[in-house]
Every structure is written in structure tokens, then in C-alpha cells.
């Protein structure tokens, strides 16, 4: 399984490095979203800094949809999805490989968006460890749920429009927990405040990781 994970992740990241879709479209989309939020909130930086945690995670969620759609579309050209099924790769390995690839792109994106939040919204981060931990845990959950729902929508003719509809409500716990942890991190970072939200993120990750490893194969076969 691990060999297949590395193989699929390597293939997807190589494709991404060549096509540069994440760099040229997904990251700019995230920055544009942050800028639009800033325009909507007006020139006063105080409400922007206050809303920064939620706006950051909303931007991450929207860009997650794009990253997952890209991951699905890579397999939809020239019967590549059938090729992947025919290869005999372990489905759990395929799931984890796709998760790693999408996750790596999201982490890079979150770094850019964090810088954007600091520069555009004037947010002052007091506890960096909470920011890093919430981003890593949130990314894991978003990538796991995204790859799973991406596979679910892959066989549908309306996959581009159905994916956000399926994915965004499901990842609400990540938005909620991530925002709360960011608020704590901006307010001075009291671990006791962030603790239940970290637990929520860990539980979300565990559920979607386990679910993905178990059901990715059957979903791929039936999609």
C-alpha cells in the first residue's frame, strides 16, 4: 500500500509541477478571494483583523474545491481513470497518494494565504504553533474528504458542479474548528481554549482517513 501511495502521490505532484495549475490558478484564486473579502469589509483594518480567521478558512475551503477538481480532472482525460483501475494499484494506496498530493498543494497554498492575511488584514499572530497545527490537521481532513468526494463525483456528468455542493457542507467542522483555533492564536494562544477544537479536527481527520482507506476502492469501481 505504501509503495502505491508514493507512486500515485509522485505522479500527481509531477503532473502538477508540469502543468502549474495550482501555481497559476488555485493560488491566485485564493489571493483574489482574500482581496475581495477585504474590499467587502472596507478600509478599516480592525474588522478585517477580527474576521481574518474565518475569511482565511473560507478561502482555504474554496481553493480546496479547485484543488480536488483538478485532482479529479487529471484522471478523467484519455481514460486515465480506467488505466489507474486496471493497473492493479491498491485502492487505499491510491487514496492516500491522492490525499498526499492534494494535501501538499493545500499546505503551500495556506502558507501564501497566511502571509496574505497578515499583510492584507493586519492580523497579528501570537501563537504560531496553533496556526501551524490547525493548518496541518485541517489540511489532512480537507484533503481526505476532498479526495473521497472527488472520487464519488468523478463518474458523474455534472462532477464540476456537484463537488462543491457535496464537499462544502461536509467540511464545515474544519471551517469551524480552524476558525476557532485561529482566533485563539490571534488572541494570544491559550491552549486550553483551542483544545476541544483540536480534538474536533483530529476526530474529523480520523473518520475521513479511515473512511477513505476503506471505501475509496468500491467508490472508484462504481463511479
Amino acid at each position, binding site marked *: 500500500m505504501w509503495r*502505491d501511495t508514493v*507512486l500515485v502521490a509522485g505522479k500527481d505532484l*509531477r503532473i502538477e509541477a508540469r*502543468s502549474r495549475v495550482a501555481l497559476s490558478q488555485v493560488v491566485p484564486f485564493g489571493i483574489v478571494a482574500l482581496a475581495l473579502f477585504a474590499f467587502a469589509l472596507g478600509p478599516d483594518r480592525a474588522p478585517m483583523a477580527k474576521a481574518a480567521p474565518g475569511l482565511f478558512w473560507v478561502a482555504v475551503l474554496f481553493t480546496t474545491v479547485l484543488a480536488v477538481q483538478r485532482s479529479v480532472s487529471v484522471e478523467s*482525460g*484519455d481514460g*486515465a481513470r*480506467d*488505466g489507474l483501475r486496471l493497473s*492493479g494499484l491498491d485502492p487505499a494506496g491510491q487514496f492516500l497518494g491522492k490525499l498526499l498530493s492534494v494535501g501538499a498543494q493545500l499546505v503551500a497554498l495556506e502558507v501564501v494565504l497566511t502571509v496574505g492575511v497578515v499583510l492584507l488584514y493586519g492580523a497579528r499572530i501570537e501563537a504560531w504553533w496553533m496556526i501551524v497545527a490547525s493548518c496541518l490537521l485541517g489540511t489532512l481532513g480537507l484533503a481526505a474528504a476532498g479526495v473521497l468526494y472527488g472520487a464519488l463525483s468523478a463518474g458523474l456528468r455534472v462532477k464540476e458542479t456537484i463537488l462543491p455542493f457535496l464537499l462544502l457542507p461536509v467540511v464545515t467542522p474544519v471551517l469551524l474548528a480552524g476558525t476557532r483555533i485561529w482566533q485563539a492564536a490571534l488572541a494570544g494562544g491559550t491552549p486550553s481554549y483551542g483544545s476541544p477544537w483540536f480534538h474536533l479536527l483530529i476526530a474529523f481527520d480520523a473518520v475521513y482517513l479511515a473512511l477513505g482507506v476503506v471505501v475509496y476502492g468500491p467508490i472508484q469501481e462504481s463511479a
Partner: protein
Amino acid sequence: MAPAAPPTSALSLRNVVALSGRFPLLAGVDLEVAVGETVLVEGPNGAGKTSLLRVAAGLVPIASGHLSVLGLDPERYRTTVRRRVGLLAHASHLYDDLTVRENIRFAVRAAGADTARIDGACDRLGLVGRLLRTPAAKLSAGQRRRVALAVLVARAPELWLLDEPHAGLDAGARRLLNELIAEANAAGATVVVASHEPELVAELASRSITVTGGRVTAERTLGPTAADAPGAPDTPASDAVALRAAPLPPPDGGIAHVA
């Protein structure tokens, strides 16, 4: 764990029905292909040739009947079966952003095959020099077909399922394809070829079946019998088709119609 005993039948379908939604792709196919045999599948457009190959590759689940591929149940031993079966489909299964070499390497490694065979396969298919470093997106249809063939040659599967393999190839590549099929067969591989150009495959195949309306409706003997084929078990040729509900080909004209 997969059974260890070597199979005598490479492909066995008994009254197999496959559906796409409520539409029948296969409507009760009986077919027995012995190990080492080369079988030509003929039939008009939409008759079920591609569906037959996709079912054999385990890409389409069967709704009823019995299917055995290389002696294994493809549902139960999905990964094992898929690693031993190669399907050359209408699509080339290539990633546009990867180079020719990267595509072949990924497909061969994914199937758990020996990557040492890649260079030989590329040389054989004329995929050399700059072409190996060319992204698949820049290839012509014929070149994509050659890359897909190189994957098949490098993987060296036990069961070759070829869907219109000559389509999009020039005359030289068609000759080469026939050589590759003959070599694979000589090495013990079983080959099932669906083609609208039977004259291109007839000399390689021992048997031809005609698929119409999702059923095997006719069969004729073309060349060497299954028992003569390299790697075939020591059984009479008639045993290879014994499970078919159809009678053996009549002596006159060699065409039998299956009920």
C-alpha cells in the same frame, strides 16, 4: 490468497450478463479461451465486443453468470487479476503532462512489473530519443497508441485484451503489432483481439467468434488449434469450447450459430 494451481483456461464466461444501468452490455455470453490461445472477436458496432473485453479486464462487473480470468474470480482477486491482464483500449490511458517515458514507467511500476523491460519495449516501438522526453499531450493518435503498446509489451501480461489494436497505426506499426502479438503468444500469453479488420489478425488467431447483440452468435476455426498453441494445456481443442452452449463448427463453411 490466490489459488496456486496453474489455470487451464485463461478466460471463462458462462452465461455472463453485464449491464450498464438497465441496458444490457452482454446478454448471456458463453466463451472459453484456453491458455496460450489467440482469439479474434468480430461483430458490428455496438455488438458488445468492447464490453466483452472490459468485462474480461474486470472493468465492468457482471450482473449474473460466471466469470473466471486466469483461473481466478476477478471480483475476489481484483488486484491480482488486473496485474496479470493488459487491456489495449480505445483510450491510451496516458497523462498529458507526463512525458512518454514517465507515462510508461508509471504504468509499469503501478502494475508491479519489471521496469528493466521498459527500454527494450520503447526501442521495439520506436519510442527513442527526443520522443521519450515528449509530453503525451504533444503526441499524435498513432504515437499515443504506440506508447500504450509499449506499456503492454513492458508489462508482459499473461492475458492480452486488444480492442481495435490496429486503429490509428500506420502500415509499419501494424506489422510490428502483429509481430508483438505473435511473440507474446509464443511466450505463452493468451490474446483476445476485437477487430473490425479481421484480415489483419486472422493469420494470428486460432479461432474467431462473432458477437452480436451482446451474445456470441458464431464461431469459426481460423488457424492452429488451442491445443497446438504454445503454453496450452494438453487438452483437445473441443474442450476449450466445451462449456459453450453452441454446437461445434459444422464442416461446411465452418460457421456455427449459437442459440
